[in-house]
């Protein structure tokens, strides 16, 4: 059987019942749209929680007795550690200026102090991907053995809660993504299945006339593909419009949205996903053809 013929049959069948086919297209569009929105949301939340570790650092308060060269070798040693990203030296004078700035209107508190009571300190930023309660424990244990450090401080609580937030967010996001995608894929499949249900008699007639499985299936696969791709295109257009009408406008008043990431690949993937779903849906919907 020639492919152009199958195409003609599929197109004529699509047009012959255009409203119900358009309805199916819209339903698939909605399924794909929500999968895309969830994907985007989960992805962006993940991006945002990835940025959080930047705020984390380990502070080393140094003994006043340490000479400048000793400090330099200390810093150099820390830099060697594989989990360390960047190291800053904060001289005691700078720390004092910062404290003053923090106290702002009440800085007169410090006026009574003759001398700067703050120590020199070193701030350590860790590599984001290696950041976790264990790696920090290991590093601090090593640093404790070093001479010249009077105290080590890091936000243990912050680190722990940051970690649980990230894990929680990612788990919830993933669960949500899986549940929703499964649901939406099921909806796409179910739409094609219910749509093709009434074609049973048609398929039976084809079989009785002696048509091969391929001959019977091809037009239906094309129909499924057209409905799926159509749905994908509609969802793609809707997503772009939603982006421009809401996210784009809202980001003026709500700058957090500005940093959201909308990968172009996703937009292009929607019609492709629709195509695949449509064909797969049609294959499953028609089922095994038995003579």
């Amino acid at each position, binding site marked *: *059987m*020639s492919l152009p*013929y199958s195409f003609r*049959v599929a197109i*004529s*069948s699509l047009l*012959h*019942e255009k409203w119900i086919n358009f309805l199916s297209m819209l339903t698939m569009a909605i399924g794909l749209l929500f999968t895309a929105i969830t994907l985007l949301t989960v992805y962006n939340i993940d991006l945002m929680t990835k940025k959080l570790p930047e705020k984390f650092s380990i502070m080393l308060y140094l003994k006043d007795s340490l000479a400048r060269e000793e400090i330099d070798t200390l810093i150099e040693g820390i830099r060697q550690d594989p989990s360390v990203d960047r190291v800053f030296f904060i001289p005691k004078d700078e720390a004092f200026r910062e404290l003053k700035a923090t106290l702002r209107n009440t800085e007169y508190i410090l006026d009574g102090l003759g001398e700067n009571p703050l120590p020199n300190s070193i701030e350590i930023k860790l590599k984001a991907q290696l950041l976790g309660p264990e790696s920090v424990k290991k590093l601090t244990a090593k640093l404790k053995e070093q001479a010249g450090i009077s105290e080590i401080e890091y936000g243990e609580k912050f680190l722990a809660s940051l970690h649980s937030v990230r894990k929680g967010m990612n788990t919830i996001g993933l669960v949500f993504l899986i549940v929703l995608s499964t649901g939406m894929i099921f909806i796409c499949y179910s739409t094609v299945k219910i749509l093709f249900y009434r074609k049973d008699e*048609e398929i039976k*007639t*084809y*079989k*009785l*006339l*002696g*048509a*091969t499985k391929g*001959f019977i299936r091809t037009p239906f696969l094309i129909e499924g593909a057209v409905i799926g791709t159509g749905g994908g295109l509609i969802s793609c257009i809707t997503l772009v419009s939603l982006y421009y009408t809401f996210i784009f406008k809202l980001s003026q008043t709500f700058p957090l949205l500005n940093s959201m990431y909308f990968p172009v690949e996703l937009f292009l993937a929607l019609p492709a996903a629709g195509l695949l779903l449509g064909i797969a849906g049609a294959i499953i919907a028609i089922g095994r053809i*038995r*003579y």
Partner: protein
Amino acid sequence: MIRFEDVSKHYDNHTALRKVSFSVERGEMVFITGPSGSGKSTLLKLIYLSERADEGSVFVSGWEINTMRDSDVPVLRRKIGVVYQEFRLLYNMSVFENVAIALRIRGVDEREVKARVFDSLKIVNLRHKSDNYPHALSGGEQQRIAIARAIVAEPILILADEPTGNVDPDTSAGIIRTFKEINARGATILIATHNRELFRDTGKRTLKLDFGNFVGEGIG
């Protein structure tokens, strides 16, 4: 061409054929008659394998088709042209396409299709309805489309189940004349009907079924 050996067919709550044996030679034209519900359609269904016999053997062209593998079924069906009692037209295709499908399924070259479909439609006097859809046709017109589809591919075996139930006597006579011409060119033809006028004076063999049993054989 066709041989039934002690064939029985049971539906859930009904025995439609009971140890039926008969044979039809290549090139024969045979009528099967009998009252409503006597098993005529069932007998034809066993030949094009819409149903499988529960007991006995069915031979078509020398094959024992009752135990045929699924994958061979379409091959068998493409050798046969069937006029189904309930027409089985495709309602979302034009009349032309409804007839052409029989050629397309057999892989006939697209350039030949048009001429052959129109020839076939001319035989049943429906050339002018080729662009209509089946639901815009009268009952008799639909039946004639079913006939056109069954003969268009010039199969070696034609099974016609009550092919004149919805047409007038003149059209019926024309259809039988057509079947006879096709039969004269070598095709084997089996017609299930209770319209006695069809086989009266044809000189063809007639098998009479009743309650799933053969009760007589004669010459029409």
